[in-house]
């Protein structure tokens, strides 16, 4: 089959086919500059403020699912066979307000109004999934949206009121769901897509096998999954990243498999997409997972991407390392498996050869005798990068620590295990003194940096104090040791 050289998608109610698309063209610029759909705003161009929130619908195993995304870092090639829904699509005929919009108006949810379309879109996504949300659910849904005027109180009031103003079953995205699904299905032809514009080349492989082949054929290619990090290379550093190979659309990388001994998460599974399986098997991960970025980024970003880019402050590696996760790397038809911690060689250097990609993450199923914890410490509670991230997995049998796996982020040039602390704990009785002694070893393994997120001194002190938190949390009936959510 020959390569396709165009992408097709639905924009609100219209079919769009584009042939000249650069790998780095963003959805936001397309909407605002090409189509003059100016309701979607640029606030930061880095996926942090949510003013550009739009919905993107895509067929997943035949079912049409809409998710909120940041248009500013959503790269155009990734929209093939998607339905893009912008604020302009919400109001009914003759300008009748959507229930979410009506609630925002009635509760004075806008002041300057610049963030408002983004909030409306995030709340719209929430309303469709959960028309009667709790306050906590609303907060989680708008973690990725900044408002500088209102103090959020009226927006929360509006979100609580929106349910009474209309039902999602009557919403256009539901009444036209089958029609849209059919139109999107017709756009999926299982062909490799190669897009060119100027010197730029973007490739959407047809399948995982095709991806393996494309990467071998395209040395030096930039591999992009959710583009939540690469998007900033584009919008902030204006980097030339061509040729780009996209993988976020590949259904084959978006599978979650639970077997007798492990949980296997495809490298293209988003943070949001892995939430259920992770928290089901590892309940301690639930509050942690909800604090990764905001909903838009959780919809776009992938665990595979978070690992692959090798950041020392990525959220997912420390807890996954503590859980004993392995990654499967593939090049062409050959595969190898690595303990996750071994993938991180040094700052900016990972054990991944040219043409190789992470195919899956495999986590052993939990051991009933292992106590887990995952902690994220950041300047701001939500949608922030951690100053220290810590994960503990202590297998305790008969009061004795049989095995300790402890990993930190933000403490070194890579996500890293606390080997001295693990050694200090192994074989010891599980008590406060053991935890204190283990904490005291941290300077042997870590020499953290000072930067705008935290000083070295604070990082070390918090890392050590988290040993105490872990201990206290295992003590039944003790006073609370963590702030209420």
């Amino acid at each position, binding site marked *: 089959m020959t390569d396709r050289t165009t992408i097709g998608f639905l924009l609100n109610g219209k079919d769009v086919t584009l042939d000249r698309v650069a790998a780095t063209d963003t959805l936001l*610029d397309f909407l605002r500059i090409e189509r003059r759909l100016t*309701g979607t705003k640029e606030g930061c161009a880095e996926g942090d403020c949510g003013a550009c929130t739009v919905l993107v619908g895509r067929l997943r195993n035949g079912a049409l699912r809409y998710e909120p995304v940041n248009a500013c870092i959503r790269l155009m090639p990734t929209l093939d066979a998607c339905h893009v829904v912008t604020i302009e699509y919400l109001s009914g005929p003759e300008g009748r307000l959507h229930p979410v919009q009506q609630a925002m108006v009635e509760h004075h949810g806008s002041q*300057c*109004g610049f963030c408002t379309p983004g909030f409306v879109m995030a709340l719209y996504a929430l309303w469709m999934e959960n028309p009667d949300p709790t306050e906590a659910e609303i907060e989680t849904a708008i973690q990725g949206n900044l408002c500088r005027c209102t103090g959020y109180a009226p927006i929360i009031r509006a979100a609580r009121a929106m349910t009474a103003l209309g039902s999602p079953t009557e919403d256009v995205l539901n009444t036209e769901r089958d029609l849209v699904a059919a139109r999107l299905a017709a756009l999926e032809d299982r062909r490799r897509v190669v897009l060119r514009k100027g010197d730029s080349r973007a490739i959407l492989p047809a399948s995982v096998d095709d991806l393996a082949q494309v990467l071998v054929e395209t040395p030096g290619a930039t591999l992009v999954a959710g583009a939540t990090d690469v998007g900033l290379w584009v919008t*902030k550093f204006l980097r030339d990243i061509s040729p780009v190979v996209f993988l976020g659309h590949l259904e084959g990388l978006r599978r979650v498999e639970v077997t007798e001994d492990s949980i296997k998460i495809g490298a293209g599974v988003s943070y949001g997409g892995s939430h259920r399986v992770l928290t089901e098997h590892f309940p301690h991960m639930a509050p942690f997972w909800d604090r990764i970025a905001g909903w838009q980024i959780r919809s776009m970003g992938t665990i595979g991407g978070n690992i692959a880019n090798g950041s020392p402050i990525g959220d997912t590696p420390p807890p996954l390392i503590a859980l004993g996760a392995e990654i499967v790397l593939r090049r062409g038809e050959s595969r190898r498996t690595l303990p996750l911690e071994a993938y991180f060689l040094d700052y900016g250097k990972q054990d991944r050869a040219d043409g190789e990609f992470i195919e899956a993450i495999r986590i052993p199923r939990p051991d009933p005798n292992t106590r887990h914890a995952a902690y994220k410490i950041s300047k701001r509670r939500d949608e922030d990068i951690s*100053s220290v991230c810590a994960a503990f997995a202590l297998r305790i049998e008969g009061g004795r620590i049989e095995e300790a796996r402890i990993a930190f982020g933000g403490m070194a040039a890579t996500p890293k295990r606390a080997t001295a602390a693990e050694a200090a704990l192994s074989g010891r009785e599980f008590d406060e003194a053991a935890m204190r002694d283990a904490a005291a070893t941290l300077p042997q393994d870590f020499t953290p940096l000072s930067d*705008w997120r935290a000083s070295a001194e604070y990082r070390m002190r*918090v890392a050590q104090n988290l040993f105490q938190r872990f201990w206290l949390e295992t003590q039944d009936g003790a006073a609370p*040791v963590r702030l209420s959510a």
Partner: protein
Amino acid sequence: MTDKIVDAPVETQKRTDPPVAQKLLRADQARDTIRGGVHTDLRHDSAIKHVTGRAEYCDDIPEPAGTLHACLGLSSRAHALIRAMDLSAVEAAPGVIGVLTAADVPGVNDISPTGRDDEPVFATERVEFWGQPIFAVIAETRDAARRAALLAGIEYENLPHALDPDAARAAGMGYVTPPLTLRRGDAAAAMQSAPHRIAGRIAVGGQDHMYLEGHIAFAIPGEDEDVIVHSSTQHPTEAQHMVAHVLGVASNAVTINVRRMGGGFGGKETQMNLFCAVAAIAAKKWNRPVKIRPDRDDDMTATGKRHDFVIDYEVGFDDSGRILAMSGDFAARCGYSSDLSGPVTDRALFHADNAYFYPHVLLNSHPMKTNTVSNTAFRGFGGPQGMIAAERIIEEIAYHRGLDSLEVRKRNFLGDAGRDVTPYHQTVEDNIAPRLVDELEQSADYRARLAAVKAWNAKGGVIRKGIALTPVKFGISFTATWYNQAGALLHIYSDGSIHLNHGGTEMGQGLNTKIAQVVADELQVDADRIKITKTTTEKVPNTSATAASSGSDLNGMAAQDAARQIKERLTAFAAERWQTAPGNVRFVANAVEIGAETVPFADFIREAYMARIHLSAAGFYKTPKIHWDRASGKGRPFYYYAYGAACSEVSVDTLTGEYRVERADILHDVGRSLNPALDRGQVEGAFVQGMGWLTTEELWWDANGRLRTHAPSTYKIPLASDRPRIFNVELASWSENREKTIKRSKAVGEPPFMLAISVFEALSHAVASVADYRECPRLDAPATPERVLMAVERLRGAG
């Protein structure tokens, strides 16, 4: 279509009128009260446009064919000489039309808002902060301009730099603007004789405005010397003057238009001048429309913020905790130029007493020059930094004397004659702080909750709680007395529709809504009959910045004046036409009562038009009573004060320094509110923004002087989940401005910002529990989790 025809009103008598007039006429059908008068919860006039994405911001204006885009080239040194500059690669880059440097400025290369000539559009021989504009590149697209700007070859010779007030003092950097001293009594002698004395220091961080819409200007050249600049500025008149100044033309050649801003908060008062100037110079040079919209990183790097302060204080007090003497030195990080640092540091001193009486006082400002971006206006304008010093002093005294801090606050409130004078010799005539605090103490159940907090902490757990109740007294008026004036322009068209302009700008605060309410009330018509269009220097000249919380105070009065002028003419006309006394003419809801006859407003206006009555008026207002002599530090700089009180309770994790605001109760004074819903929005929003300033919003420069927190990824303003878990906000319903302000309301933009000091002091209270409240924690702002943990550790170490 057929539906519409069926629905059309049958108005046989008015066949010749357009349909809109019929709609207006129908609105005139008898109702007792108008819709959207003053003191009602009229929603923001753009609310529907906001939620549908149809509100037009500057970047949404359709671009004429041929529009070009500019990008600034910024310095990458904090202080250096420019040895050589090679822009050939920039000019040769794809899509580039040309570059601008200082040599291309046709008028004066200066945009100093105070005329101190210390702020070039483009740096020439020397750069004085990291991020200072050196050149601009103009290209066919914004993307091309951004890419080209990176290609500049600039050779620097580094010079030593000083980034903060302490370093600046050590380096002998001097002041950017003359300092201020406020003095009353003999502070030194009173300090000497005081039974107790404490000297301390607090460092207070700055704050980025983080308006969601960044800076933007869009210049369209006209004939002769003319240029129109659409922009998102809080100060159209100043932008007009600056553009004229850099172009070397008269002000009458320059028009500045502002429909709305996506947030301002002071950040778009003077800081937009740069962008207006660059866009206008380029537009005239190439005779094409030019837009400049910096990326968020450049916006945060190249434009000013709230001033950081280092405050050294000394306080003398008696056994009961009553202050006898206070002295304070307020050193500010002003940045490389003066900008508004003079009035900002002045206002810090004006608020260094907050709501308290200092029998003897000496306050000095130190507006330090630093090699950082020039700091500027930000909601509160120095007031918050002054006020937090006052509250720290109260806390110090309370810990020293083993008293509850609220008790110490009460003992020091401004009071009756003899205890009612501020350090700037203004007598406080409208003091309602004690009443607000008493009421809030009751409604927030402060005593019982304080006891509960202490009982909880006595258990010695990891999570500690803290509570604090703090007052706010904020002076209303520009301290630059001549700024306290405003104009408005009101037209009534012959169909009875009303067109209103005023000198204020809409940045989200609902100013246009409030002003429409004022006019609606004055003319007794529904507010939706009044259309307020963009603010433009063409319609209302010589306006002041929409700043200092003054927007509705000043422009509301000016609009009311315009409405009254027309009303007078209409009354005289009615008296003559209906042959009755003027006293028998009354404007009632959407109609005019003339003797026994009631005429619908639109009909009445049509009659007036036919009788050739002038239906347009320019209104004007200047604030009475105020005067200020800076040299002697005496006067009445403020027309009145706005008050408030807040009680906040927090939980602190003493292992990590993380915290949550569990509850905040607010009782705030807006006088007789023009619009309680909008005012409440201002109070809630200001409180959370103030929390951000004092908690997670940290500006961080590296050793080279480069700001590393320059976007929301690194600079953390509050999110929904940061707002208080319980958030009770009340407006003091009984309050009425004793001065004759517009409808006896009070300004609301800035005062509630400082209610967030209660959060800071509650955090301090929780920290103090680890040493059983023996000591006032040393806590600087912002109280990030790191600073909180380190304060805990210090106290534990000391204990």
